[in-house]
């Protein structure tokens, strides 16, 4: 496998040198650029004989453990299912077990990542947390799922995108130190929605055009007027209910929400980068975990995201990733640029 420590933009500058003293360097840079382009072309193509997006990288098998908190708020609870053990018959425990496996497989097969920390971290989840607890969260080391209050929410393991969302918080924690507040927090949330949606689409083998782009579809009870928690395709349209109100997510910077609630609106303004990702996937077509997923994953793991990363800074990192992976003249690069322009994030 060819690896270059020199980024393509520097190679281009060296290759463009006309002065005689740079001729050898310019020739070498041109050769390296040709090689980079061939690698970029190869990266853009799925490997023959493998499902789309699957890469030749070996990650270890998942090491799953599901616990039952028995309606207490004490973690982790009692072990109910370990790796390789048969189904328990408890839907919440078995959905969590399966969801952990599906999520592990996306990262392993598509992104070549060995679990949440890229080093084979065991995957732990607790179900039946609290009484009528209507939430799911990542506590820094494991996933936690409530049963819902039965009035607004059903159990949170019902949605694979929610399971993928929670595990993605772990990936972000181990890949980028994004603060959980304001725009950095909204990027953190959006990354969880993006990879949560990708898990669901990967399992269903749905293209960008076929996917619902809904996060938490099926979580609401029949009493609620709404289809999901969020819509990446059309932020602000997931629900409109007389008790819950209307989905508050903005779909561009024109309607950015300034609030002190929700850690500065991290689940609200995430609609803006969510839509940017959808627009990239929609524009490129095919499977969203391919080129769009690669670009976002590369941005997340690039080491370029600071704790207080803004939407603008994140957009620039995704654009740099698109250029690095596919080239500055690629349709992928153009799609990323257009997506951020559409949601009014200045590059």
């Amino acid at each position, binding site marked *: 496998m060819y690896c270059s420590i020199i980024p393509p933009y520097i190679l281009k500058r060296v290759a463009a040198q006309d002065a005689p003293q740079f001729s050898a360097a310019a020739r070498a840079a041109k050769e390296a650029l040709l090689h980079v382009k061939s690698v970029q072309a190869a990266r853009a193509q799925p490997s023959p004989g493998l499902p789309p997006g699957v890469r030749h990288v070996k990650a270890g098998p998942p090491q799953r453990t599901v616990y039952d908190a028995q309606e207490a708020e004490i973690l982790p609870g009692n072990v109910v299912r370990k790796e390789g053990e048969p189904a328990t018959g408890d839907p919440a425990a078995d959905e969590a077990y399966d969801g952990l496996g599906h999520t592990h497989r996306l990262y392993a097969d598509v992104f070549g990542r060995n679990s949440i920390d890229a080093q084979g971290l065991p995957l732990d989840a607790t179900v039946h947390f609290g009484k009528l607890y*209507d*939430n*799911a*969260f*990542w*506590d*820094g080391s494991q996933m936690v799922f409530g049963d819902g209050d039965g*009035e*607004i*929410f059903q159990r*949170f393991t019902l949605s694979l995108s*929610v399971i993928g*969302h*929670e595990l993605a*918080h772990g990936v972000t*924690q181990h890949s980028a130190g994004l603060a*959980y*507040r304001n725009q950095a927090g909204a990027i*953190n*949330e959006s990354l*969880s929605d993006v990879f949560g949606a990708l898990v669901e689409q990967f399992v269903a083998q749905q293209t960008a055009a076929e996917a619902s782009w809904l996060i*938490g579809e099926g*979580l609401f009870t029949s*009493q609620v007027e709404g289809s999901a*928690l969020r819509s990446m395709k059309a932020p602000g349209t997931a629900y409109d209910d007389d*008790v*819950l109100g209307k989905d*508050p997510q903005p779909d561009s910077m024109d309607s950015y929400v300034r609030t*002190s*609630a*929700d*850690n500065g609106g*991290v*689940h*609200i303004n995430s609609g803006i980068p969510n839509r940017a990702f959808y627009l990239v996937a929609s524009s490129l077509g095919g499977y969203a975990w391919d080129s769009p997923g690669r670009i976002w994953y590369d941005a997340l793991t690039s080491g370029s995201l600071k704790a207080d990363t803004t939407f603008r800074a994140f957009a620039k990192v995704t654009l740099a990733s698109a250029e690095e992976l596919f080239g500055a003249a690629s349709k992928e690069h153009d799609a990323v640029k257009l997506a951020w322009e559409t949601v009014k994030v200045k590059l």
Partner: protein
Amino acid sequence: MKITVQRSGGIAALTREWSVKAVTPADKSRWEPLIAACPWDAIPGRDEDGGGNQPDRFMYSIRAGQHRATLPERAVTGPWRILVDNTRAAAEAARNKDGRR
């Protein structure tokens, strides 16, 4: 005296609010000890240990008379938890009495 608990955040980011009014002497004698038990002057800062929030956990804004506090879910323990749970239960009981969802 009005006691209000606002819960924001969570993966669903649905803001819920529960309020009760302590008007009668009997109400006040029930709620004032719950309020007085909370350490209003020792609220953890955002970046202090225990003050930060974990992804997708709730944030609570609590108001009781002149008192104000904003706390991450994992800091809502002890007297805070008792005040929050009692406020929510009383508000929901009143709501159910009115036949509202």
